[in-house]
């Protein structure tokens, strides 16, 4: 499903020093598998997930998704890939503050051309599944951290993606909600999705098909 070849990502800091966030990453994620990226802060997990989620381009190396090299994709092709195949759950949620929960969830459906009524129904179904049926019209600032994370998860699922990438999905939420998220991701995997999660949470390792340990931008 996802394969990388000698993946590198480096940044030029204002001090003109080159910082390698990830380097020489060779990784393989099979279809319908649950893969964990484990590692300390600053080990390059987020950078790697951003590249695998088509949110960022590598400095060097290749990423193959369903056999296609996505590093050579145009901006439009990458957007289409994100829309059709990938659902990304961010560590700090990245919800749009002025929108309500259901509007945030249905936002990716707007350019697809789905009518407002259908968008509302789809968002409502997902939010009810997340236990937020009574928070449809609440703005993010009216929600707790756990509730925001669940809205972000609902948004990631709204396009029925084949791949779900989650960056520290339980780091900003309480233990009870963490368990709910874990359960949900397990259900999604059972439904046929491929799950890739960066986390410190040891609970995830129990259900993972594969665990990659990262340190200093490399996979150990």
């Amino acid at each position: 499903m996802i394969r990388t070849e000698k993946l590198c990502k480096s940044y030029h800091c204002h001090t003109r020093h080159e910082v390698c966030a990830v380097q020489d990453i060779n990784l393989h994620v099979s279809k319908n598998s649950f893969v964990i990226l484990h590692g300390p802060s600053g080990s390059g997990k987020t950078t790697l997930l951003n590249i695998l989620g088509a949110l960022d381009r590598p400095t060097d190396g290749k990423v193959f998704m369903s056999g296609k090299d996505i590093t050579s994709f145009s901006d439009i092709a990458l957007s289409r890939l994100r829309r059709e195949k990938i659902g990304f759950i961010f560590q700090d949620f990245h919800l749009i503050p002025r929108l309500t929960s259901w509007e945030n969830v249905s936002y990716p459906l707007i350019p697809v051309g789905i009518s407002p009524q259908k968008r509302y129904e789809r968002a409502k179904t997902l939010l009810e599944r997340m236990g937020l049926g009574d928070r449809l019209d609440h703005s993010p600032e009216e929600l707790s951290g756990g509730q925001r994370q669940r809205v972000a998860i609902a948004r990631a699922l709204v396009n029925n993606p084949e791949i779900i990438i989650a960056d520290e999905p339980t780091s900003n939420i309480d233990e009870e909600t963490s368990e709910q998220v874990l359960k949900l991701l397990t259900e999604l995997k059972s439904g046929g999705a491929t799950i890739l999660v960066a986390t410190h949470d040891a609970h995830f390792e129990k259900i993972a098909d594969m665990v990659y340990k990262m340190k200093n931008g490399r996979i150990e």
Partner: protein
Amino acid sequence: MNKHLNLFFLATENLLRHRTKTIVVCLCIIAILSPFITAVAISEGIRAQSLVSVKAGADLYLTFDEFGRNAAIPLKYLDEIKKIFGVTKAIPRIIGRAFVQNKLAVIVGINKEDIPESISCISGRMFEHPNEVVVGCELANHFKLNIGDQFSMREQQRKTFTVVGFFSSASSIWGSSMIFMSFRDAGELFGKQDVATDIQIHTLPGHNSEIATDLYDIFQNEPYRLQDKHMVELYFKKGFMLKEGVFSALYLVAFALGIPAILVASGFGLSERKREIGIMKATGWHTLEVLELISFEQLLISLLGAAIAIVLSILWVKGFNGVFIAQFFVSEITMLPKFTLPAKFLPLPCILSFFFAFILTMVGSVYSTWRASTESPVVSMK
């Protein structure tokens, strides 16, 4: 449902969500466009009225020529001119300027029988006896004149005039500061008895060139100036463009200050917008879809701003009679004209105003949007 329709509705919702920004940008657009639309409407109105006056006037205008300028023409030629074949009417006029106390008035002296039929917008009556005058509404209001009041002018203090009528406030701008009197009285006022400032010649169609030849024979070596309708029309346009130019120069200064205001207002909340665009891109929006959304927003805000500016301009002219702005186009009037200001709202300036607003708002937002949407979503979301 169509994707473009979705984006259009989202743009509408976004304008409501960002109310403060919408209001500020709209106000900037209104501040720039409203004086422009009002000025163009007044300018077109006056131009149209002046051309109607010229078209309704004489076919030829005859004066003497001194130092390359119009000069008074002796009345001794009047009978000869009337006898020329093709001339239906020759009307001598005295048009000059005189001070009533400290206010300059346009004096028009014409024989009673030659008064054009179009001059009917008078309250009171037309002059019939010596020293009777009809006064423009602007002057009448300034001096609080009533029918029967008497006044004199600085040029001829001993001569006293009696007000017998007024040009109504609905009359044209030409009547605003005018004093209308008999030809004889005007001659006495300026101390010129046997001359006219010009002779209006009405002719049969197609006879102008033959009449011009006959006039050449009459005047022999006298320097005279003959202008037809078309030339007078050109003078009107030329003189009017000069006034428009003065307004344009002042307007350009205001305009130059207004553009940065719109650009700044359009860029309000840029960092929030950048983050939002990053989220949109991360959730699968294309750059073109983001740009389309922003364009719809600017289109709507421009339409709204331009529409309000047009409505305010109509109100400015029709409700407040072009207060403050009229003086740029009509000389010697107060800030609030006492006559009904002519104005003509044409579709083209209104459409141009909208395009102008659209371009301005687009310039203020499209580049930053494009930058944010072509960057990687990770960078934009930071």
